[in-house]
Structures are given as C-alpha cells and as structure tokens.
C-alpha cells in the first residue's frame, strides 16, 4: 500500500494539520510520500520523500497548477491512495485530481475499516462505509479524525516545477472579520443558563469557555435578563450551532434552546436537576451545582 499525502501550506506557513495526514498513513501502515506546495524554509519533520514545489512561484491557491504537480508526483510514485485533508484546500483540489485520474474519491474519511473507509453523512448523524472501485483512489480525511503524527527527521526533497495554468487568479487573503462572535463557526461553546444563578457568575462560565478555546453561549432567559449579550444566544431565537463540544451550564433545556444546539458533536450538561430535559440529548450529564463544578473544571483544564 502506497500513499501520497498532500500537505497544506498557507500564508507562508506549513499547516499543522499536515501531520494528521501522517497520522492517517500511520494507521494504514502505508508506505508514504508527500507533496507540498510550500517553501524549503517550512519543511515538515518527516523522513520520507517530499515532492516540493515553491508556493512563491506556484501560488498557494492555484488548483489547476497544483493538480498538475500532483499528477506529476502520482506518475512517479503510483500511489494507491492520494490523501488530502478535508479542508478548503483539500476539498477544492481532490476532485480535480480524482477526475483527472478517473479515480474513486471518498470524502471526509473519519476512520479506516475493513477494506473500506468510514465517512459521516446526514450531518454526522449516520455513517457510511465506502470502498473505492478503482485501483487508485483519492481520499480527503476529516480534520481532527486522525492523530497528529510527527515522526521526526528530514524529508528527502524532490523538486517539482510546472508551467502556469491560469483558469483563475488568486488575488489575496482577507483577514477574519472582527465581528461580535459567530457561534455557528465555534468549535467549542460553553453556554450559561438560568441555573448559574446570577449575572456575577457569567465570568466563571466565560473562563471555562476560554480555557477550552471556545466561545461563550447563553440561553434565552439569561440573555433576556441582560446577563449576556444577545449575540451569544443559542437557540431558535438566537443562533443555531453545531460545535465539536457544547457545554451547557445550568441550562434545563427549553425546546427553543435544544433545537439550536442539539447538532453539537458532543454535549456535556451540568445541572442540579437529574431530570432536566437537557439530559435527554446530553452525552454526559453532570449532576452538580454549576457554580461549584465549573470553576473546578476550569482550573483543571488550565493546569
């Protein structure tokens, strides 16, 4: 089994997610080579073959050209799998490579199963096991699904060059907008409900959110009471969210709230009431006093 991994590079930097590709290859126990449109000054710590093209000349986003480079490496390596991250770079480029090779493509792989790959579907509610019907296949793997693997070493560099193919022109980057907050895109949300007791307790919830690298959310009563600004409200009258982790602090689970956050991948609820409706959809219900538990958890996370 041979894999060709397509590394990621943006704004002059190698992206850490590249190492997840190595984690995947590790799990496949595959012979590995890598392709990167990047820079010699930003090499991955990895000891295999690295097909390297200069982003300075080939562009960071130039899918037509990058496709050509990949096809060149594919020619040399004849890999069984060409693996991308399921990212704005990967999902844009992978189908172009697959189409050129007329190879099967399997998107957003989350696990390797017997003779196939596990992918999520129906908004992660369900799974499919998919197998390629072609000898060569293109994969994109879900970010965070495979462990980061930094095996160390220096790559054996093979330089690639290709002539420009200009179906599009990359103009540049626009920095992320500094807006209120966009909970819909947050990966972690820690939400405060009425159960936190009083406005003075909001900072404790915010502290946990910060410790977990997330945003503060809130239920409607808390927003209505003026404890938290409206832009933080989760629920049908606020924002509908689907973070990787949702921590509901003192939220009993009014239907409007549940409808807004139940798509979260993992839900931890902290509530005094064991029978609170939030318990029905929470993966973990911690029966405790919110204001005792949350600061203790924050302290532990920070340690």
């Amino acid at each position: 089994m041979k894999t060709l991994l397509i590394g990621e590079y943006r704004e002059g930097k190698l992206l850490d997610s590249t190492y997840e590709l190595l984690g995947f290859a590790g799990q496949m126990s595959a012979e590995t080579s890598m392709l990167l449109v990047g820079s010699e000054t930003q090499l991955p710590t990895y000891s295999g073959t690295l097909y390297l093209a200069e982003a300075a000349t080939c562009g960071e986003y130039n899918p037509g050209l990058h496709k050509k480079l990949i096809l060149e490496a594919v020619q040399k390596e004849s890999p069984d799998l060409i693996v991308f991250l399921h990212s704005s770079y990967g999902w844009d480029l992978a189908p172009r490579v697959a189409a050129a090779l007329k190879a099967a493509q399997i998107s957003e792989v989350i696990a390797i199963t017997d003779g196939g790959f596990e992918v999520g579907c129906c908004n992660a509610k369900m799974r499919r096991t998919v197998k390629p019907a072609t000898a060569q296949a293109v994969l994109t793997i879900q970010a965070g699904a495979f462990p980061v693997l930094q095996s160390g070493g220096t790559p054996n560099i093979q330089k690639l060059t290709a002539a420009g193919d200009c179906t599009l022109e990359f103009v540049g980057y626009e920095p992320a907008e500094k807006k209120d907050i966009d909970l819909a895109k947050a990966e972690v949300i820690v939400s405060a409900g009425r159960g936190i007791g009083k406005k003075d307790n909001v900072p404790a919830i915010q502290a946990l959110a910060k410790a977990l690298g997330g945003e503060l959310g809130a239920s409607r009563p808390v927003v209505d009471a003026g404890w938290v600004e409206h832009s933080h409200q989760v629920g049908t009258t606020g924002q509908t969210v689907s973070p990787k982790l949702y921590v509901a602090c003192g939220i009993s689970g009014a239907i409007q709230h549940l409808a807004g956050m139940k798509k979260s991948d993992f839900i931890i609820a902290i509530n005094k009431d064991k029978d609170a409706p939030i318990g029905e959809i929470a993966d973990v219900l911690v029966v405790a006093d919110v204001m005792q538990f949350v600061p203790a958890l924050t302290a532990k996370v920070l340690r």
Partner: protein
Amino acid sequence: MKLLVCIKQVPDLESRFKPDAAGVWYNETDLAFRMNEYDEYAVEQAVQLREKLGEGTELTVLSIGPDRVVEAIKKSLAMGCDNAAHIQDQAASAKDPWQIASIIAAYAKDKAFDIIFTGMQSQDRGSAQVGVTIAEQLGFACTTTIVGFDYVDGTITAKRELEGGIKGVVKLKTPALVTCQLGLNVPRYPTLPNIMKAKKKEIVAIPVADLLTEESLTTTASFHPPAKKGGGIVLEGDVADLVEKVIAILKDKTTVLR
C-alpha cells in the same frame, strides 16, 4: 447569458434515519424532504445575478431524482429561476458523485452555460465533489465554498471561506462554476405572486438514461448509525471526582484537550 444552478433535495436533518433494505442508504419512510441548504444559497446567488443582468439572461435550475424533487425545483422557480430540468432518476441515491457530476456535465455540455452554481456539498451525502467534478468534466474554471460573489463583464470575483474565518479572494473567467457556502447570502422567501408564476414555468423532464454513460467509481458497503457514543452518561457525586471524570471524557471523546 445562460446560467445553471444545480440543486438536490435532501431529507430534513432532524429526521430519524434508518437504513434501507439493502443497508446502503437511508429508508425514505417518515423523512421530510427540503432543498439542500447550500443549494439554496446557490439559487439565491444565481437569481441575484439573473436580476442584475436582466433581459437576455436565462437561468435554468436542474435537479436529479425521483418525482419528489419537483417540489424543490418549484421552490427554485418561485425564487426566480426561469425554467427547469428534472432529470428523472428513481435510483439517484445509488449513484456516486462521479456519476451525478457526469450526468450534469452531459446535460450542460452543449448548452453553453456561462456560469454554473452549485452548493458546496449536499447535507445528506456530504461529499463536496459534484460541483468541482462537473467543472473538470466541462473544462470550466472553478472555485469552491464561496461566501462572496460578484460578476462583471465575464469575470467573477469570489471570496472563498478558509479555515479560521480567513477569506481567499479569487477571480475567474467564465465559463465557470462556483460552489456556494453558508454566509454567501440570505435566500429569499418566495412571494405569493412568484409562487403563482412558477406554476406556469416549464419543467423539462429528462430520463436519466439519456445522460448517464459512466459507471460508479465507489461502492457503499453499509449505511449505519455511529457506534454508540457515551449516550447519556449521568455522573453524580463529589465535585472533584466529577471534574476528573469529565476531563477523562473530554480527552477520550473530543479533541478539545489535545
């Protein structure tokens, strides 16, 4: 100018999914269907462009699937598409992205579309392949997951959404295909006069066999629910113990502490 927008009808994601008899896709019983969310952004953008360009521009909406997809087509027509192509396929769900893209490319091949709009992915299958693959098959310029769109004199300026809220600005010459992402626009709610008008717009039905020449490149072995996650663990007891347990769970089940 000729515009095409490709839409898919998908089950509402609040539905309960059960595997079908073959165990490779969902059973449609008890499912409520609606237009794929990303496709709504695509339709809205196409309609906005159609309105901006005015007379002489024709916007076609296309969907592949059984008769039920006509509902989604009608909604697009009510939103402002001019006409529609319904590619009739009872077994659309059994086709892989390569085949779906090939069908659309076969349809579009001789129609000289200038811009094709699609959603960035479908909410049920989620492969994010069809749009780009159509573009590759047709030799169109293409960019994906756009959250900004502008068209002037044969050039599209699109904003791609990248990770961490950064955007990449791209210019493409037509003919081109763009895949649309949440945040691009707010899809309009069809007005009643437009719903009435839409009833009279033409929906051309095309049997899928007329367009399908490709074999599937992948096979689905199974469709199943995820292995039971923690599924409602209730933790009680001393706060310090609870914290330990929760930390362990966070490490085990989520990526936030890695």
